[in-house]
């Protein structure tokens, strides 16, 4: 099983230079898969003037396809528009497996659909939780149901997320795997010297939006400041709720005790984290909180709301959980302050190192890939029968969409036969690899 090497195409609208959990996940997973000897290619949409082919560390090839994003970094949902380019990339890179990320990436859904029509095995990773009741979620869930109806295997980042995905998409639970995220522990090291305990610093780093519980912060911070005179807050992040926090600061005249940093670039997150003792996470919903992992890896004690996949992230003695309600959070912060003298950041860091590792994530993902490749090959009719039970009308519409896609694919095969698409030559990186420029050049060399 180990010598089976895959050629994987990662597809998502979310990739660098945009920054976030999904982008990080794809990058680290790809890097570790490359180290395991697989071939990985990333496909995303163009960001600004960054379009075309780029190479990243380790020869990770990224296609920035020039389809303009229109909303929240998502490409326009033209259902069939991307078929030719996806087909070209799949053929020229000799891909064996397509891995899509994130439920609200339209590019991912399109790629998975086209790849299925062309008979490729597909794996899907869901990174977030969703509701069931509002209009947006109902629509999203239908789209997800459509994509997942025919997916070979699915991956979720936590057990809560798995439960959520299975409920939303009607996917059989035995097809869904749970592989938690990891953290780059080498990047998030605790401060070399332990901070003094006479002043306690609580760090909050999150986007200041409703979902991240900025309103909870507005109620909790003044109370904590009143009860514990030696506590200071550092708030990093920006968003629509920032105004509310600043209002609160003015109202309770806490300017000297609440520091607002604004948006913190990811490279600076560690330097902010190590200036504090306690990390406070007030999210209202969360599939898997990477911020907690980063804080714990820096040796901070975590206080968090007990929502979504958060309770699965850390062992009990490394975090204090509370209900998403100000009084309970106040209690949790009090408990954390009392626990603080027993916390050793270095010990915490070394424990995190053992618990979370991207290489481990890659190995587990590899197993999912192997399983996906073992799935029996089905013809179009068998596959169409999976869409029909999706709903009385939706099922028929899904079938229709797939049939059109199939016809378009056949037409494209006549138009541009598979043999006409040039395959990209394989190349291996020398050990003194520097960056993209050199790898690009080596590729040219290998063409000879």
């Amino acid at each position, binding site marked *: 099983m180990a010598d089976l090497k895959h050629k994987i195409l990662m597809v998502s609208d979310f990739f660098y230079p945009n920054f976030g959990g999904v982008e990080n996940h794809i990058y680290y997973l790809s890097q570790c898969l490359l180290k395991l000897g697989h071939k990985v290619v990333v496909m995303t949409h163009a960001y600004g003037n960054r*379009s*075309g*082919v780029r190479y990243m560390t380790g020869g990770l090839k990224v*296609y*920035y*396809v*020039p*389809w303009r994003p229109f909303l929240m970094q998502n490409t326009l949902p033209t259902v069939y*528009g*991307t078929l*030719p*380019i996806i087909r*070209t*990339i799949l053929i*020229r890179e000799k891909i064996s497996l397509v891995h899509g990320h994130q439920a609200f990436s339209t590019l991912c859904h399109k790629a998975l659909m086209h790849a299925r029509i062309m008979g490729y095995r597909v794996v899907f990773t869901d990174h977030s939780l969703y509701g069931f009741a509002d209009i947006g979620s109902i629509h999203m869930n239908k789209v997800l149901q459509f994509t997942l109806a025919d997916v070979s295997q699915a991956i979720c980042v936590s057990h809560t997320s798995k439960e959520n995905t299975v409920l939303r998409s009607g996917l059989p639970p035995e097809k869904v795997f749970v592989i938690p995220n990891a953290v780059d522990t080498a990047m998030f090291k605790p401060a070399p010297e332990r901070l003094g305990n006479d002043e306690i610093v609580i760090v909050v780093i999150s986007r200041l939006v409703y979902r991240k519980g900025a309103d909870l912060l507005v109620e909790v911070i003044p109370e904590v400041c009143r009860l514990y005179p030696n506590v200071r807050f550092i708030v990093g992040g920006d968003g629509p709720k920032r105004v509310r926090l600043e209002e609160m600061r003015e109202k309770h005249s806490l300017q000297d005790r609440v520091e607002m940093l604004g948006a913190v670039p990811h490279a600076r997150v560690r330097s902010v984290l190590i200036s504090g003792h306690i990390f406070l996470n007030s999210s209202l919903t969360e599939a898997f909180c990477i911020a907690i992992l980063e804080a714990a890896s820096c040796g901070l004690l975590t206080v968090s709301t007990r929502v979504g996949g958060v309770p699965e992230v850390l062992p009990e003695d490394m975090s204090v959980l509370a209900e998403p309600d100000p009084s309970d959070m106040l209690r949790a912060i009090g408990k954390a302050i009392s626990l603080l003298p027993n916390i050793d950041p270095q010990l915490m860091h070394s424990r995190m190192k053992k618990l979370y590792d991207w290489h481990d994530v890659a190995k587990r993902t590899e197993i999912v890939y192997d399983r996906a490749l073992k799935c029996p090959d089905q013809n179009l009719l068998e596959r169409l029968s999976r869409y029909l039970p999706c709903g009385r009308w939706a099922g028929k519409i899904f079938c229709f969409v797939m049939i059109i896609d199939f016809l378009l694919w056949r037409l494209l095969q*006549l*138009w*541009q*036969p598979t*043999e*006409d698409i*040039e395959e*990209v030559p394989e190349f291996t990186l020398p050990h003194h690899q520097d960056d993209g*420029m*050199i790898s690009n*050049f080596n590729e*040219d*060399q290998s*063409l*000879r």
Partner: protein
Amino acid sequence: MYCYCNHPWLESAPSLTKLFTQTENATFKIDDSVVKAGENMQIQTAPAVLPSSDIKEIGKAIDMHCVVVRKSNAKGFFLFLSAAIVLANASYLVLLKDLGEIELQCGAFPQIAFTCALVLYCIICDKSINILLWSFLLSVFLVKLLIWKRVMKESVVVMPTFGVQLETHYVSGRIVRRFVPIGKILKPVLLECVTPVTCYWSLSLLLRGEAELMLVFKELRPPVKMLIPIWKALCGASGIKEGSDS
């Protein structure tokens, strides 16, 4: 001379693609034979570099690579077909005029607009024969427009220690020549390009003091198999070792 063609029996399909979408898949011939002293090779400039050389040596020194588009009948056929449709539409209108009716005939793709224009003209001037004349002119214009942009061949003439001349020959007989002195070339590079519908390889020149790359083949997108020998020749001419990073 070596020809490149994957599927001779499917030739019409790629040329169709070329005609409509410009997502290149035309079939090419490559001509990398060493050129015997030709009229337009600017050999007059060579003696400055190679003072005592005879014709044969110059021929050896100058390296010419041509990428020739294979002539396909389908393309020409489509051109004249569309022209014929325009004419047919016009004569149909003339006939209609005789019957005293005006009916919009939605023919093939661009003809709708032309038909509308013709109908308008027909109403205003009330002269049937003029329509025929005008549509004839229009179709000539159409054919001319399409032929004007059609490329017959593109060639790279490498003159060692002197420079590189890039030529684009159009079917219309128009020739666009660009000359790049050897000192200006920083490095020839083979790049992968991505468009919203396809990927292709392109050979470009990195020029000193210019922000943008210069495309060696401005109009055509030959396959990478053809580009490699040209890339190597360019590397050799610009004195850059292929395996080293300048």
